């Protein structure tokens, strides 16, 4: 039995308090990249009762994604935007979701991210991460940006951290574990980093 929107809202307000829940449910968060980071960030925020998610990824669910990304075997071949939307609505049926099945570039970034209060950078390629961070901070200086760098391998979980770089820019990760130098990405460590990002989003909304 799926709860009504009123029941859903009341349960979250009871847990978070009305004021904080209003901040969370009034927020729009963009998630750029729906891999190990993005799919886990989305689920954390959906559970917390975020108002709206903007999900952006060009790729389809592949068998090599399933060890760390929040998709199911039956979703192989689907666009990640569509598959994640399905999964999120099973968890949080009243969540508003906007999807863009596309690559983010210097030319479309402002259009895709214009409605977001907070942007999560969740790409996997270092150059693309840097592009998004530079473009977002230059073109949209009033938005918050939560980026990630360094979460590959089986290194110490406690090395994953969050640093505030400027008043509106946060960086999560150990900042050194490169996918090319390690055994690749391991679900638990990627989830840790994604949890740091989602947690930072909620902290920002608490301060509002």
């Amino acid at each position: 039995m799926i709860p009504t929107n009123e029941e859903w809202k009341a349960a979250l307000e009871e847990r978070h308090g009305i004021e904080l829940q209003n901040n969370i449910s009034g927020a729009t968060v963009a998630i750029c990249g729906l891999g190990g980071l993005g799919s886990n960030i989305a689920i954390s925020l959906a559970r917390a009762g975020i108002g709206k998610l903007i999900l952006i990824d060009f790729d389809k669910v592949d068998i090599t994604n399933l060890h760390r990304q929040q998709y199911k075997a039956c979703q192989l071949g689907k666009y990640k935007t569509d598959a994640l939307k399905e999964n999120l609505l099973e968890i949080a049926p009243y969540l508003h979701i906007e999807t863009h099945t596309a690559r983010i570039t210097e030319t479309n970034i402002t259009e895709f991210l214009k409605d977001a209060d907070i942007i999560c950078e969740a790409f996997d390629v270092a150059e693309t991460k840097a592009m998004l961070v530079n473009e977002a901070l230059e073109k949209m200086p009033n938005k918050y940006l939560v980026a990630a760098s360094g979460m590959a391998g089986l290194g110490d979980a406690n090395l994953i951290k969050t640093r505030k770089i400027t008043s509106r820019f946060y960086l999560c990760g150990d900042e050194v574990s490169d996918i090319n130098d390690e055994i690749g990405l391991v679900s638990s460590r990627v989830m840790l980093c994604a949890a740091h990002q989602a947690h930072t989003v909620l902290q920002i909304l608490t301060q509002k």
Partner: protein
Amino acid sequence: MVKINGEFLDVAGKTVAGYLSTSAYDAKRVAVERNGYIVPKAKYSTTVLCDDDSVEVISFVGGG
């Protein structure tokens, strides 16, 4: 002296682009924060580092 990633370096007078070219950083993978603000990429070659500047070079690694 310019403070870069916590280290005091004798690079005052150099541009951001000039400093990066002499460092081990890959300019395509970095974001540069100077005194609390991000330096736009297009201004790397015209932004001159000054004494007492506090700079952070964030160098991204792959994985996500």
